[in-house]
């Protein structure tokens, strides 16, 4: 093993430790944040008895769940029942490995370590655990594994509520996976690369993709909400209908794993939204290219802030909206988002070709042109076509005349 490889491995392990720790601690804090945010929206206080301002609440929950009795329904398929939380938990963590959490940092070391020997590393180090050349496909592939966990949980519990939750979840995930994938194709077209860091570079050169691909961002965001099973798409665990949906029969730590997976998914999707459409760790002004540790830290903070905003958005939406009905959810996915994404791909392709033919090659100008195109598109989609009609499913009517008698 060469010293370079050793250095690379050491750094990777370190990065893994840091990222996974941060994500898991983040998940714990997010559960608290969710409770605090909801309390804040609902004229309440939220947990504030344990630790300072309730900061230890997730710890108390965790301790309690670890020492709580694990129940196994008598008729459940024991193997799958145990496997299901793990299947939904692992992909959620894996996904956080490919997100670049900050600008590359120049690392330069040459160490002699006991047991390992010489290890050295020179050059820029990506702040993703693995900046895969197929990062993008990796995300799509792994995130669709998560649905197995939920579907298996629903099926193996041998409970009707769980079964319905699992079925709903499978249908929902499959449908929105398509929309999500399609919505990302314009990003690929524009970036010309599937690596996250390259996508960020493309946004640095041009505009952030939220400007040049606004509709894509919209589709991705909606699908992201659906993929994470968050309200208004939380049908698999619709509390008022299916008690707790697919995890009705789960107790203690197995149940916690589902919760951790949900919040980890939320972090990942938020980070992807930030990466793909809001320039990732990019700060306008381009001063972060020197690769210093300070730049890495600042960009990581910026990335964190962007993701945090989307996480907050998740919670904001959750505590504001009613839930979709199953057929409306399907209608939204198949009749609205997927056709829209397909049309949008065509539009972007044509626009790119036209830009190329017109000789406009400067990325910023290209982005501005696309922004104009998107504004037109938004107007058409939201103000001419939709106005809430497509969501109403099979039935719609004019707003009822004033109900006063």
């Amino acid at each position: 093993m060469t010293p370079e490889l050793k250095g690379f491995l050491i750094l990777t392990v370190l990065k893994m430790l840091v990222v996974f720790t941060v994500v898991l601690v983040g998940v714990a804090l997010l559960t608290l944040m969710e409770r605090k945010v909801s309390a804040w929206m609902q004229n309440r206080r939220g947990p504030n008895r344990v630790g300072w301002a309730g900061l230890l609440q997730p710890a108390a929950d965790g301790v309690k769940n670890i020492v709580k009795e694990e129940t196994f329904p008598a008729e459940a398929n024991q193997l799958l029942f145990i496997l299901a939380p793990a299947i939904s938990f692992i992909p959620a963590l894996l996904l956080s490995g490919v997100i670049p959490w900050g600008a590359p940092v120049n690392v330069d070391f040459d160490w002699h370590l006991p047991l390992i020997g010489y290890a050295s590393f020179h050059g820029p180090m990506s702040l993703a655990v693995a900046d895969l050349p197929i990062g993008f496909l990796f995300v799509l592939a792994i995130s669709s594994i998560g649905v197995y966990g939920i579907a298996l949980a629903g099926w193996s519990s041998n409970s009707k509520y769980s079964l319905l939750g699992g079925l709903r979840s499978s249908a929902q995930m499959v449908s929105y996976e398509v929309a999500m994938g399609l919505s990302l194709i314009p990003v690929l077209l524009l970036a010309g690369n599937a690596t996250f860091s390259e996508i960020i570079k493309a946004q640095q050169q041009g505009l952030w993709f939220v400007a040049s691909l606004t509709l894509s961002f919209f589709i991705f965001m909606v699908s992201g909400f659906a993929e994470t099973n968050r309200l208004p798409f939380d049908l698999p665990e619709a509390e008022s209908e299916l008690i707790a949906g697919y995890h009705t029969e789960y107790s203690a730590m197995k149940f916690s794993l589902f919760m951790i997976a949900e919040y980890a998914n939320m972090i990942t999707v938020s980070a992807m939204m930030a990466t793909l459409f809001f320039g990732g760790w990019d700060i306008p002004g381009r001063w972060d290219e020197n690769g210093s540790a300070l730049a890495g830290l600042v960009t990581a903070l910026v990335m964190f802030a962007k993701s945090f905003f989307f996480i907050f958005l998740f919670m904001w939406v959750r505590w504001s909206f009613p839930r979709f009905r199953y057929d409306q959810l399907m209608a939204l996915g198949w009749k609205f988002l997927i056709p829209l994404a397909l049309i949008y791909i065509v539009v972007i392709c044509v626009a790119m070709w036209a830009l190329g033919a017109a000789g406009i090659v400067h990325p910023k100008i290209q982005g501005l042109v696309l922004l104009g195109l998107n504004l037109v598109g938004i107007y058409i989609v939201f103000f001419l076509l939709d106005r809430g009609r497509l969501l109403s499913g099979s039935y719609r009517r004019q707003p009822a005349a004033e109900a006063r008698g």
Partner: protein
Amino acid sequence: MSTRTVEMALATPGLDERGRPSRLPLSIGQPGDDDMGAEHMLVNIGPQHPATHGVLRLVLELEGETVKRCIPHIGYLHSGFEKLGEYRHYNQIVPLTDRTDYLSPMANNVCLALAAEKLMGIEITERCQVLRVIACEMSRIISHLVWLGTTGIDLGAFTPFLWSFYQRERIYNLQEAWTGARLTTSLTRIGGMMADVPDGWEAGLRDFTATFTRTLDEVDTMFTRNSIWCGRTQGVGVLTAEEAINFSLSGPMLRASGVDYDVRKDRPYLGYETYDFDVPVGEHGDIYDRYRVRLEEMYQSNRILEQALDRLARLKGAPLNTDDHRVILPPKGRAMSDMEAMIHHFKQVMEGIPAPAGEAYLGVENPKGELGYYFVADGTAKPVRWRIRPPSFINLACLPKLCEGALLSDVIAINASVDIVMGEIDR
């Protein structure tokens, strides 16, 4: 050709002596049914379920997520109110009425007092009437607030529940100041009230009426034009006017179907004919119209409250209780100093107020619908029969009809839109 019924947790099929299954499959599939269509699942919702508003139990026969049949099972909160009432004096029944429809206790108290007064032929004073109107309309507001919040939860929106409970707490404060209890008010007595409102109470209620509609406006902003909300509620659980009448529905359920019937307008009591208010009537008979009707009713109740407060100010110092010594206890001071008054007090408390033989039915417009108390008396101080006409019991009876062909999520929404309270249904 499969006519299999999926029964997973419901029952183990038993065998009779001859070894045949003693329990029949739920659906007898017709020859020619396609395989997919013939496979039904039986889902049991409740009695302990977040969306059944208590202990209602719904057995749903599902085909996929479509409800083929909905069979409500009630009685899980049957406490024997009517039987208990036969062992109580008329005034002792008042605390029981708190606990039937516990979402609007004061309106129930008022209904009981009115029915007993009708039975005994007692006139109440004008100030008492105004105070009872205030009690009824406060109850309507808090009951509808709970409805609004819980329906929001059932449809997935949690936040309005807490907003509406915040306003409910304000009414609780007023109730507590008036009656000493937050929920079980026992406000009325036959011929009058348990107590007059305390000093400064009107100002508190005025403050409430002036500000609480802000919450309604917020909810209105959140829901009324929300496309998810409209999609979930419009065209779901539709009942036409004829069906609604045939099902004996009452209250907002009936009015949302387009029947302009309100006990306050059509058979006025407590001088409701002299108040200026509108009765909102829907036209489609779906959940959305029920929502609109109830929301508007809260605004209208607010109007009534404001008018009643004006009258209350005019009637300051007027007598509260009727001057009928058969039913009204002598003042405490006299009972403590005057022998006759004390004997009278003692006899009235211990022996109760005898009602003349006869019977009386009186219906009032409760938040849930027409609440009717039906007394049969035989000349003693305890009723032979105390019958509650429970509006939500009768409204709920149309649930199987409303749920036909709906989706599972719709059943929850429909059930919420009926606005049931199990204490009243099961009694």
